């Protein structure tokens, strides 16, 4: 990553840490601001950056909600410079409407991040090569942040794993299509570049974005940065750049109803007696890729593992009508590429203004096919801990979710939403498979994915972490709110050890290392 300051960027921007299959996502609340800042100061040196590959030592990244930054003591003058999405958070009536967080997925039902759960302030992400290593690392961190009541866990941590072949729980290779940052060393070359390469500012604040201007991040009064760890903002009087080298992080816990997905697929393929190939084909049409990851647009008739990681393809030239990859397939909604009858090049250019850098991982035990013991397996929760990075949450994550995935009229379709993530509504959903001579429509899709929690975070660059850690030098950060203290006290009694989820035996999957 030569194009950006690799030593100042958190490593998650550069890597999904595929070599560290075990991970834990800890959701923390600030109990004592001064203690929390001291703790932050103590871990800054351990935070993994984008410089070099950390082979053995566990990786560590950290991000904050807007409420968390306030709890840490960041002043109003700086808090106001955050984009509205961060200030308001994921949970507003409007955002629930556009994100599809309704019914069983409504924030009122969430395990964390919702209106009835404790405020999430800090997201601590730990990645390790072994399960034991992860365990040890988490213990160490817990001891440190719990000390003196500085921070506490507000929800059960989520353990992310890597399933066989990089698949998600429905059985499909995931995370294949990723944007590449221009000038950062990992760009595909030649014609392949057009599908992936975007400007660094699309994900890293302070750098040039696709519109040719530096991506706007938050700022602080230069006077508050006594040791001058932050760069000055050009063309702004007495402001320093808190955003530079940071990113906005979206986290959503998505529970997947794997049995429901498989039974719908079986029914759509013609009942239980159908051959596995037909079932696989229906499932692949909903996804847009075969289980290996091979795109239907390139191999419409059967899976071809040789094409499993292929990402350099479009729809306009060979599959404009959706005969290969249906127009409403998940990957075609999530990234329509050049799918446009009249303006493919312009469409691709504007589609690339809405890319997500995805860093999510599956959680929970995978379901075996056929099931080992149906009852038990079907009740266990499993899903995807969706995590993506953005330079502009409204233009990227929320746009993809609302304008593409949840849009009932996407690409000339009418009355259907994303087959995997969308809320099909009370009557059950519909999915159109474009065919020759005419389409076939599948009816009765249920909601296969339920949201269990979510929040928007700011993942600061390393200098910004240092700035936040030394906020105590400032006069008058707001005192901790009394109510929160009480909440925490009652918590620490009822919820120790706060590891129900992990100790109840959800090791991060049958990961292959």
């Amino acid at each position, binding site marked *: 990553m030569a194009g950006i300051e690799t030593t100042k960027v958190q490593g998650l921007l550069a890597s999904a840490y595929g070599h560290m299959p075990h991970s834990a996502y800890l959701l923390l609340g600030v109990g004592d601001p001064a203690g929390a800042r001291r703790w932050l100061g103590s871990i800054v040196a351990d935070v993994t950056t984008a410089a070099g590959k950390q082979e053995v030592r566990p990786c560590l990244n950290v991000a904050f909600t807007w409420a968390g930054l306030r709890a840490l003591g960041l002043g109003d003058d700086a808090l106001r410079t955050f984009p509205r999405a961060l200030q308001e958070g994921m949970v507003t009536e409007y955002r629930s409407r556009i994100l599809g967080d309704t019914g069983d997925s409504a924030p009122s039902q969430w395990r964390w991040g919702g209106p009835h759960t404790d405020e999430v302030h800090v997201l601590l992400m730990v990645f390790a090569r072994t399960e034991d290593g992860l365990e040890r690392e988490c213990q160490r961190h817990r001891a440190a942040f719990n000390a003196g009541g500085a921070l506490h866990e507000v929800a059960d941590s989520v353990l992310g794993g890597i399933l066989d072949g990089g698949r998600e729980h429905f059985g499909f290779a995931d995370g294949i299509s990723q944007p590449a940052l221009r000038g950062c060393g990992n760009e595909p070359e030649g014609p392949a570049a057009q599908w992936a390469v975007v400007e660094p500012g699309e994900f890293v604040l302070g750098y040039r974005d696709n519109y040719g*201007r530096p991506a706007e991040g938050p700022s602080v009064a230069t006077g508050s940065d006594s040791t001058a760890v932050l760069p000055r903002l050009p063309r702004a009087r007495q402001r320093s750049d808190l955003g530079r080298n940071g990113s906005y992080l979206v986290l959503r816990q998505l529970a997947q109803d794997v049995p429901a997905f498989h039974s719908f697929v079986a029914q759509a393929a013609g009942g239980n007696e159908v051959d596995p190939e037909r079932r696989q084909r229906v499932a692949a049409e909903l996804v847009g890729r075969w289980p290996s990851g091979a795109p239907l647009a390139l191999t419409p008739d059967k899976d071809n593992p040789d094409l499993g990681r292929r990402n350099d393809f479009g729809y306009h030239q060979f599959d404009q009508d959706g005969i290969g990859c249906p127009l409403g397939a998940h990957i075609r909604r999530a990234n329509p590429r050049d799918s446009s009858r009249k303006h493919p090049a312009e469409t691709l250019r504007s589609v690339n203004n809405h890319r997500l850098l995805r860093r999510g991982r599956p959680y929970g035990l995978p379901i075996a096919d056929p099931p080992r013991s149906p009852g038990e397996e079907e009740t266990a929760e499993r899903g995807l801990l969706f995590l993506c990075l953005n330079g502009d949450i*409204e233009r990227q994550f929320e746009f993809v979710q*609302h*304008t593409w995935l949840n849009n009932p009229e996407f690409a*000339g379709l009418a009355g259907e939403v994303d087959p995997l993530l969308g809320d099909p509504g009370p009557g059950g959903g519909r999915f159109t498979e474009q065919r020759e*001579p*005419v389409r076939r429509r599948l009816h009765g899709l249920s909601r296969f994915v339920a949201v269990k929690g979510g929040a928007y975070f700011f993942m600061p660059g390393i200098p910004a972490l240092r700035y936040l850690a030394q906020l105590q030098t400032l006069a008058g950060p707001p005192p901790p709110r009394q109510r929160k203290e009480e909440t925490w006290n009652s918590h620490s009694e009822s919820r120790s050890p706060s590891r129900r989820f992990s100790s109840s035996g959800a090791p991060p999957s049958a990961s292959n290392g």
Partner: protein
Amino acid sequence: MRQTVMTIIAGVKPGHADELASVIKTIAANPAGNEDLPLAALPMLHFASLVLHDDPELGPRLVFETNSDGSAGDLVSALVATARSGVEAVFGHCVGYPADAGDRAVLSYLHGHVVRPGAYHIGATGRSLARVRQEGRLRDAIQGFLDAGHMAGTTPPTRAELRASIQAFVRDNPEFDWAETCPPRETMLERARYYARAVASLPAAILLLPAAPVALITLVVKELTDRPRTDAPDPAHVRALSDAEDFGVANHLASVIPVKPGPFRLTTLRVVLYALNLIARLRANKGELGGITSIHFAHWSVIDGGRRLLFLSNYDGSWESYLNDFIDKAAIGLTAVWSNTVGFPRTRFLVFRGARDGPRFKHWARANQTPTAAWYRAYDGLTMATIENNSAIREGLFGSLDDDGIRQWLQRF
């Protein structure tokens, strides 16, 4: 077929703004079936809005927007005939309204306050409200026919057989008698009129040409000295706007922005609008304007004797996606218009930069947006793209098509 995009604009009587706002709030709760102003009772009305704009200099004004089939006279007459009490309830709070007078006085008041847009776009050009609905029902019926699988057999039907069976299904259904004889979107005569207007503008364009170098220099100097105002708008203002958005597939956008002072900018603005309007008439009659396929009705009007520019739009999708379309697909045209208004992001040579500066353009647009007080849509759930597809289905249903034509037509389902 004639369609009319217009506004009726009137100053609010001093001290009446709050009361008018509460009247409109009641209408907003049910604009289709409001007791006084049942907009759904107007069979020619596609979209309508009521906007209360409290101008810091010019005081509060009421903007009543209508997008309808037929002429302005048709709309105003129907309004008075079916909703006289609603007209009274709303315009009774406006300056000069002839309260307790006969219908003729009210008609002439409304006509007197009609403002025609300087430039407008109609997505469903030439398709009446009745036809939009009929074509929607036709498409649904054919989809149902295809779902029922009447053609399922041992051998799949050929394309031609399939189309023939759809034709037979439609012919068998008296509800769709209209489908075979539906008139075209625009007649040759209507098209010819727009071309004639374009030709007639040429001499004026040629006469203006010698002034171009001076105008260009004036423009560049102004562009260097104009002050953009593109800081982030008040989050509470934006939140109030977005809280009212994204119920259903379409949204409404209203803004009233001061034109930059002086005759140069006003003249530039009028010339640009005139040119855009001609382009829209000649090129944008198929549900698409400059690559944007999500606009039902949009219009700019220069109002208040050239001091303000009013923009109203009825569009599909979110504000975010609409603005992204502006930036990605239509930045040149929009910049040419809006750069003549106060605070717009810095431009070069009238059409460059400006709206291309995405984040700042969005800040500027949100800061200048006026909340829509009441909004009526005759069809929700029908996007412009769907309306266009439905028309294409109907237009390709009968008549001769070659095999590839039939293939493409069948892919519309």
